[in-house]
């Protein structure tokens, strides 16, 4: 049974007060409570302040390319589906540069837990707008305010085949831990959009802002209802942020169909040697 300490890597370099501190802690707590150890989990990190968590949380990790953490995680899972795979990504990372991978991973229902740091900005490159930025948000790259409307990641995931879609808040560790654990328990593509204040570059979506604009879904809410789930997703546009599991459904995870012999992970399968079975077609 491992402890928080086992998962604790280098001292974080995040800005004091950054929402990432909470997310990092929640990740570690969830992993501990799930009875995992740094040796029994695969982590795929994007590039960003979010991705910098690679040095702060222990595990078998790959700190890959900006925007590609999901694509990388897909390969990890298919190669060894006995290990849980988490992708820790930024909103620019996942919805901007990596938008296409996110879209198609939803369709594939790859059994990956994606933790998205939704902070509305490109933190590590000093604050340009992310695709989650509210229309009109001013930044170095958009001095007159961003023209695009924000991406709707929840609706995107729900409509394109993701089977677990949740939202949580970096200011509520307990809720994050619960949500990450639920994502882990779900088999299939699991989206956890974490509302994360960037204290340095986004003066609007602060902790106070989210305290006022978030609310928790109660027991009466039925995440199996796709239309209702979309209704919840659309509330975000009115700056109302539901927290909890917004949508959940059942579908075989990708590796269960793609890995021929599911009982054994690809990496442990015995080598194919029946070459004669292949060459017939060449004769």
């Amino acid at each position, binding site marked *: 049974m491992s402890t928080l300490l086992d998962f604790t*890597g*280098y001292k974080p370099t995040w800005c004091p007060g950054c929402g990432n501190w909470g997310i990092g802690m929640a990740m570690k707590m969830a992993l501990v409570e799930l009875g995992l*150890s*740094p*040796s*029994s989990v*695969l*982590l*795929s990190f994007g*590039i960003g302040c979010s991705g*910098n968590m*690679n*040095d702060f949380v*222990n*595990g*078998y*990790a*790959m*700190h*890959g*390319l900006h925007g*590609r953490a999901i*694509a*990388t*995680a*897909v*390969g*990890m*899972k*298919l*190669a*060894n589906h*006995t*290990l849980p795979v988490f992708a820790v990504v930024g909103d620019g990372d996942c919805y901007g540069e990596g938008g*296409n*991978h996110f*879209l*198609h991973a939803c369709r594939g229902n790859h059994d990956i837990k994606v933790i998205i740091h939704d902070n509305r900005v490109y933190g590590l490159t000093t604050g340009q707008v992310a695709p989650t930025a509210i229309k009109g948000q001013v930044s170095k790259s958009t001095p007159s305010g961003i023209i695009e409307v924000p991406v709707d990641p929840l609706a995107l995931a729900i409509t394109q085949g993701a089977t677990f879609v949740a939202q949580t808040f970096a200011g509520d560790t307990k809720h994050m831990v619960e949500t990450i654990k639920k994502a882990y328990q779900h088999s299939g593509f699991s989206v956890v959009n974490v509302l994360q204040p960037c204290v340095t570059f986004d003066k609007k979506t602060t902790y106070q802002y989210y305290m006022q604009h978030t609310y928790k879904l109660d027991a009466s809410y039925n995440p199996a209802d796709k239309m209702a789930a979309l209704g919840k997703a659309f509330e975000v546009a009115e700056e109302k942020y539901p927290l909890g599991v917004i949508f959940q459904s059942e579908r075989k995870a990708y590796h269960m169909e*793609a*890995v*021929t*012999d599911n009982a054994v992970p*690809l*990496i442990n*399968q015995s*080598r*194919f*040697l*029946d*070459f*004669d*079975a*292949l*060459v*017939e077609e*060449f*004769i």
Partner: protein
Amino acid sequence: MQFTWKIGGEAGFGIMTTGLLFSKIAARRGYHIFDFIVYPSLIRGGHNAYEVVVSDEPVSALKKDIDVLVCLNKETFDTHKHRLAPKARIIFDPEVFSPDGDSIAIPVPFTSILKELQGQVIMKNTIALGASLALLGGDLNELNSIFTKQFAKKGAEVISLNEQFAQKGFDAVVLSNKEHILSYLTKKEDKKKMVMTGSEAFAYGAVAADCRFYCAYPMTPSSGVLTSLASWGKKTGMVVRHAEDEIAVINSALGASFAGVRSAVGSSGGGFALMVEAISMSGITELPIVIYLSQRPGPATGMPTWTEQGELLFAIHAGHGEFPKIVLAPGDQQEMIELTMKAFDLADIYQVPVIVLADMLLSESHMSVPYGEIQNEVKKHIPNRGKLITTADGTYLRYAVTEDGVSPRLVPGEKNTFYQTNSYEHLENGHTTESDVERIKQVDKRAKKMKTYLASNFIAPKIIGNLQAAQTVLIGWGSTKGVASEAVKKAKENGKEIAYVHFSYMYPLNKEKVRALITDSSKKYILVENNSEGQLGKLLQMELGVSLENKIVRYDGRPLTVEQLIEKI
């Protein structure tokens, strides 16, 4: 004995299948074959042609004239008549057109046979095959046995229907053109052969190498690999994935490689271009990956269904920043199988990206290869995974600095330890660093790997012909091997000794091992490349300081021909 059989018709009417059947039958009859496909970048309409050279010796390039031309339409005749050999046989449908000129007309009543047996247009191919076999002194058994195999699922009726059409074509020749029948395809005892394309050879090599993850996005002329590996998936257990784009393709493959399985990807220039960033990541993370790059004439979309060797320097320099990389370029199907198995070993031994360069000519042409030899090689092959380890203690350092530059690579999952692989510059333990000292350590370590490779695994160019005796020496790489080898033979027939220095270990180059072969001042060296810039020439200049004055290049999308080489010698 060597002859060319060629069939042409409208695109989308089974010309490819028919040509391949002919190649297989010739191989089954005991002959060597080499074939080449001509098709436009569209699915129907336009002209398709399929050309097969049959020989009693190994053959690796097209020959100048056509001995038997099967015209499923008039265009075929008009397009190819200038290449007809004296006494060439023309199989055609008298109801459609009649060939002019003095070649030998072999009328076959395609249309009326179709009417009679109420077959679809596509059946013309079967008739053509029957007629061709008759004309060349073959018999129908091989063809019929192929039908039996091919249409097994579709049932006995389909099989016998095909047999009937073949028979009709066969009879048409035997009955009314006996006097023109040749004996080219009379059964000949010879080693068992396989007929495969370069892409199929790569796919087969990848299976033999125990590659377990192949990811691709379709792109001509590389898609053959995806098709083959996908079709074998259920048997081999390989996970074969058609991803959303080429960036996903290579990043997933690197994820799988990190998790410990051998992984490969494939594309052509455009898709490869999208993988360049991740190739650089493979460099710094030291994750093995094999990349099949099948070139076509560029730039950009270019001429998708034609051939060129225009991406040698691009492949060598692909990726931002400085890192080691190995580039191989097999010259034919058999070499493709060998070098593909080798590529996976080198990727694992040096933990680097290995690019296997091909082009449309190699990827899509069929060649007959020795069944026994290859099956032996494949079966005795034991993958060398280099310093891959499955256990380590807590102090494991992923990027440990070592003598040979290679660090032990632990398969994730081992208990009681963990590590990260990192696209940032890193400490030996994998954590991000900006330290000048650590940076130098890691750059030097990565560079060291290639020094080790050059000393331990680099293989010097193959020599074809007699280098000592040769006054003229051709220098080429990859698919030019085929035409250059034929040129060496041809020259010898003409009483001239020439040799060919064949590069397949393209980059990095071992200066000493290579220089010796191409710097004898008493010889005339000629660079032979299927591109416009003479890229191997530039590479030799850059890496060895050797500059070659003479070159023969071709860049119209067509393969070099033996005649083109001979005439310039």
